[in-house]
């Protein structure tokens, strides 16, 4: 299964958000999208999902433009976690999880044992077993994020798109999430994650995409993308690049007196 953006440009009210971006995600790889605030990361994700119309170029799933797929068929293949989500009404964790199955069940079919099994295993995978009857308003930010990830997994997607999934998490939960993403990739999922954690992205991602001002500034393995000159320029702050145990490149932002 392959999701790609082919020369996508998007403008919001005359302001360019994406400029001729080409990108692809295949099953079995973890791709990290990084870049400064407002560089177009979320817009790229929304374009891949068909949530924003491209002014030129298009996004396609298995060669077919995403706009030509029904939302239900897309939801069966691609699961996504938008950055923010505030349910309008109080839900229990189990009710929130059921909603991950609606695209598979359609409007009429009733909830079957296979749905409950999918929900239970997704919750177990995200370490949230036992929380089924809790109201989501009683969960911590990290727990709610893990429930949302479990809901995405409950629909048995082939591709997973995450927009800053660790923004509300402490390092323990953040590491657990990245480890889980790696496990999912080993199971054959394709995962895209938008993150500000350059160093974790470098250690976990197969490929990285660096965006700035809506353009792709660098794309490739972490070593190819995280070069001191490029990163310094894009984030407008001098950085040095070292490596962790001789492997993944690690960014160290410099203090003023170190420059």
């Amino acid at each position, binding site marked *: 299964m392959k999701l790609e953006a082919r020369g996508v440009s998007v403008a919001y009210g005359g302001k360019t958000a994406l400029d001729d971006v080409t990108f692809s995600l295949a099953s079995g790889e973890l791709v990290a999208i990084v870049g400064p605030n407002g560089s177009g990361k979320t817009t790229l994700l929304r374009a891949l999902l068909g949530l924003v119309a491209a002014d030129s170029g298009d996004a396609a799933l298995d060669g077919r433009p995403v706009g030509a797929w029904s939302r239900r068929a897309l939801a069966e293949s691609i699961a996504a976690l938008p950055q923010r*989500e505030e349910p309008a009404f109080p839900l229990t964790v189990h009710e929130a999880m059921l909603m991950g199955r609606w695209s598979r069940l359609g409007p009429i079919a009733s909830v079957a044992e296979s749905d409950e099994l999918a929900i239970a295993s997704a919750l177990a995978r995200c370490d949230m077993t036992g929380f089924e009857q809790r109201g989501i308003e009683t969960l911590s930010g990290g727990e709610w994020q893990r429930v949302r990830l479990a809901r995405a997994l409950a629909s048995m997607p082939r591709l997973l798109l995450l927009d800053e999934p660790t923004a509300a998490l402490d390092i323990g939960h953040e590491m657990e999430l990245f480890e889980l993403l790696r496990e999912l990739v080993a199971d054959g999922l394709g995962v895209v994650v938008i993150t500000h954690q350059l160093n974790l992205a470098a250690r976990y991602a197969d490929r990285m995409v660096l965006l700035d001002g809506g353009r792709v500034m660098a794309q490739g393995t972490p070593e190819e993308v995280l070069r001191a000159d490029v990163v310094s320029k894009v984030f407008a702050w001098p950085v040095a690049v070292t490596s962790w145990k001789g492997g993944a490149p690690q960014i160290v932002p410099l203090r003023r007196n170190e420059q």
Partner: protein
Amino acid sequence: MAWLCRGATNRWHTPASSPASPSRRRAFFVTARRLTRSRAALPILAIAAIGACVIGMLLGAVPFSPGAILSALRDAGAPDAAIVRDLRLPRVVLAFGVGGSLAVAGAALQALLRNPLAEPWLLGLSGGAALGAVIAVVIGLPLGWSVAACATAGALAAMALVYRISVVAGRRLDPRILLLAGVVVGAFTAAVTSALLVVTDPFTFHSATIWLFGGFGRSSWDLVGHFTVVAVPPLALLWWLARALDLLALGDDTAATLGVDVERTRRLVIVATSLLTAASVAAAGVIGFVGLVVPHALRGFVGPLHRSLLPAVFIAGGAFTVLADTAARTVLRPAELPVGVVTALVGVPIFAMLLRRTLR
């Protein structure tokens, strides 16, 4: 001394937020929720609804004994058969259908707008439908289908106007602005409706208050028939959209990624709720607060998932309106209160209470 302050702050804050010491009232609601979110909720509601209908049949300008009602229903020649069969029974049936439809429309609009304050009356839909119906009557169209059609057109026009105003006011659709626009459009349509009612021949109408505050005084089997034909398709459509409504309540992007065609669903929900409101208003005038209070009260009991919420809301809304109508025709007997006055008198305090509880 910082550690002392921190200790003091913690001690101050812990009891209120600690799950180990919930207030007794909260514990009651949690237990009630656990008990009733099971499959028992619908049968309990159904029994309550049957009780409401029995009360609605027994009480009225002339109270009947249960025996008199039964014999009148069994035998067309019984002394009270005409009143029971042709006045009271269609009135109870119509009140049940109208109340249920308004409550379902309210629940659907609340999910659509992600706002528990949305309701056909507050959004100006009911006012638009009433204006449409009154125009149909004033220009002398035959009663029946044309009134329902004009009420539908009025409800859709009001919804379009409310939408336009709120889109102009804020660049993105803000539910709060939408509600304000709804209240304004509702007030405007009520003003035009009142003006039309004043300048036209008073004999055209059973009573002006029916259109402005609602009433089931015109009930007949014909009216029940017209209402049913208009109301059943949108009710079925909303039930079919129940899971899409669940997802819409999570927000547009989340709903879309979980498989909802947001724009198409939004259009269908708007048309369905406009039709339901129009059917209800054409039959019984403007009745507020049913669509506000009933879904709000029931979410805690049957849960927020619309596959079970919508049927429960229909039954409870029907029962509530039958009781409201019974009160309307008995409290000041032989005078009759507009039923919208009763639903507002009962609905506003309940809503204020629920609102406080949700905001706490």
